[in-house]
């Protein structure tokens, strides 16, 4: 590797490795601030969905990519967050700023309960346990009067102080600021002791235990952090959609999140964001394509709904078969290539 040499630990651990990283981030933030003034409502709504997905994907990547614990029930934690905030703001009249952390905490509590068996379960068994958890949560939401079953539940608008969030622009600033906070927290978490312990557990948990890392504490913590993120994402999603039904939190949502982190790159923060953007964008891109071809092939529009899950599946398979490090791996390789060009090393 050529280029930068780091001569102190401080520099190696720095949040921004180079000045350029800071500059580009500043440019990006400025773009995001002015973007709503130039975009249509539809384009903004896509960006909002991407922002929510980013929070959820970061959470799943902390658990699966960094700690190596498979979770096939991430959608259930989003459901828990969404329904918690729906009930808290709707039935008890609790303000949004309080219900947001509460729905995260609710999801985190249940996540810890799911995490406890993970001390004994590994790989396949954990995958099945979380999958079963997802089905059970969906079943409970369907059959409980409190959550109003498949009728769905209306969720109030967000009110902060005396201000009510109404337009897509308002949502954009709100969701993006939460996504930014989530990203900063995740990025910082993984460079602390906790993050390094997570990575050690992923690489070989028996060895990590022998080195003195308390497996029980950190595995349960990974589950708690991950489901806290999912709960917050679910809470934002509920307020953004204003109407939640159990059907939207089924296994396909969990698969979409897994597709995000696999496509983006396991164990990378930037990868989670890229994956969230792409996987959320793909259905909209398909809709755009079908609108385009609708005149010439009218039969196409009915078929498209089926495609979504199939394409997510295909993305997971193709990424794992040909580029296991995901988009982040491609990005890193491209960066190294241009840095050392025209030399090979």
């Amino acid at each position: 590797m050529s280029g930068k040499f780091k001569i102190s630990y401080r520099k190696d651990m720095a949040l921004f490795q180079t000045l350029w990283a800071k500059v580009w981030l500043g440019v990006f933030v400025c773009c995001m601030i002015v973007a709503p003034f130039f975009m249509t409502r539809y384009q903004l709504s896509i960006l909002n969905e991407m922002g929510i997905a980013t929070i959820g994907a970061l959470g799943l990547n902390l658990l699966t990519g960094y700690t190596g614990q498979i979770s096939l029930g991430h959608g259930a934690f989003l459901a828990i967050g969404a329904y918690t905030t729906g009930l808290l703001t709707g039935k008890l009249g609790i303000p949004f700023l309080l219900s947001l952390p509460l729905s995260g905490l609710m999801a985190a509590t249940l996540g810890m309960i799911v995490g406890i068996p993970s001390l004994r379960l590994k790989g396949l068994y954990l995958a099945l346990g979380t999958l079963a958890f997802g089905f059970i949560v969906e079943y409970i939401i369907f059959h409980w009067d409190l959550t109003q079953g498949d009728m769905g539940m209306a969720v109030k608008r967000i009110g902060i102080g005396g201000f009510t969030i109404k337009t897509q622009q308002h949502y954009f600033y709100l969701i993006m600021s939460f996504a930014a906070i989530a990203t900063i927290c995740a990025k910082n978490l993984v460079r602390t002791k906790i993050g390094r312990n997570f990575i050690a557990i992923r690489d070989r948990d028996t060895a990590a235990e022998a080195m003195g890392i308390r497996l029980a504490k950190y595995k349960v913590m990974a589950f708690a952090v991950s489901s806290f993120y999912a709960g917050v994402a679910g809470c934002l999603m509920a307020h953004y959609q204003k109407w939640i039904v159990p059907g939207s939190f089924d296994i396909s949502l969990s698969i979409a999140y897994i597709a995000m982190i696999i496509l983006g790159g396991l164990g990378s923060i930037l990868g989670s964001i890229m994956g969230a953007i792409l996987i959320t964008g793909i259905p909209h891109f398909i809709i755009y394509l079908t609108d385009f071809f609708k005149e010439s092939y009218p039969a196409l529009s009915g078929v498209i709904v089926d495609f979504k899950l199939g394409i997510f599946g295909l993305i997971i398979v193709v990424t794992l078969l040909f580029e296991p490090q995901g988009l982040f791996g491609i990005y890193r390789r491209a960066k190294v290539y241009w840095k050392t060009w025209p030399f090979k090393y």
Partner: protein
Amino acid sequence: MVKILEIVFNGLSMGAIYALLALGFVLIFKSTGIINFAQGELAMVGAFICYNFATLMGVPYLVAFFITLILAAILGGIVNVVFFRRMVGEQMFSTIMVTVGLASILTCIAGLIWGHDVYAIHSPFTNKTATIGGIVLSQGSLYTIGISIVLLVLFALFFNRSLLGIAMKGTAEDSDTSGLMGINVKRIHMVAWAIGALVAAVAGIFLAEQSFVRLVMSHTGIKAMAAAILGGMESIGGAILGGVIVGLVEGFAANYLSGMEIGGFHFGDIKDVAAFAIMIIVLMIRPHGIFGKQKVERV
């Protein structure tokens, strides 16, 4: 008493289907080390193929049945070549995720070909009953149980007596060493996938016999996985026992718990999650299933 016997019988016939699906898991797992989350989807595709021939094209039922078996085995082979040939020996996470992706791809393709409606296969046993000792039993269920027992016995014999079966067991144990011993590992994997898909198709057709052909029937696959886990992924006997347990518990839960209501919570369709609830409990108590062996890990 008669009611309980009926529940037991219906539970057994569902259990036989779960056992067949679980057998498919165990078979593929034992020889390739891959846990196939798409087993239910393979069963669903099998049922749709049978429906396509028996009902849409009017082929006699038995002929359609055997055509389905052949096509399912070919499908299994294709899946192996396209997806899993290069996945052997990869990490558990990658292989599981590839099968999860395969499951969504199969559902998508089946949805595109056959649509989202509910269909029925016309079979010789539809709506026919037999009476044994005062209990009315459907003939379809009787055949399901009978054929499942025959198949399960055949597989037990195959794994313990035939050269190919023993070779498959050896490959599962250590594919590198078995390759050195002169076993054609690629062929073994191919055979395992073909048989696994074939067994799944049989289960799918029997399942369609008991209910309908539709896309969501693939969920049965996950319940069957619960059955396989119950018995411990390694053993065929365990898979059968797990399947029977899941079938019976579902039957009893559906009869005695449905319609109950506690504090605004309705226990309708409890059948759908009973299997998962038992599985979680069993995993908490015995993390490697009833017959599973604890593995010694090296760092």
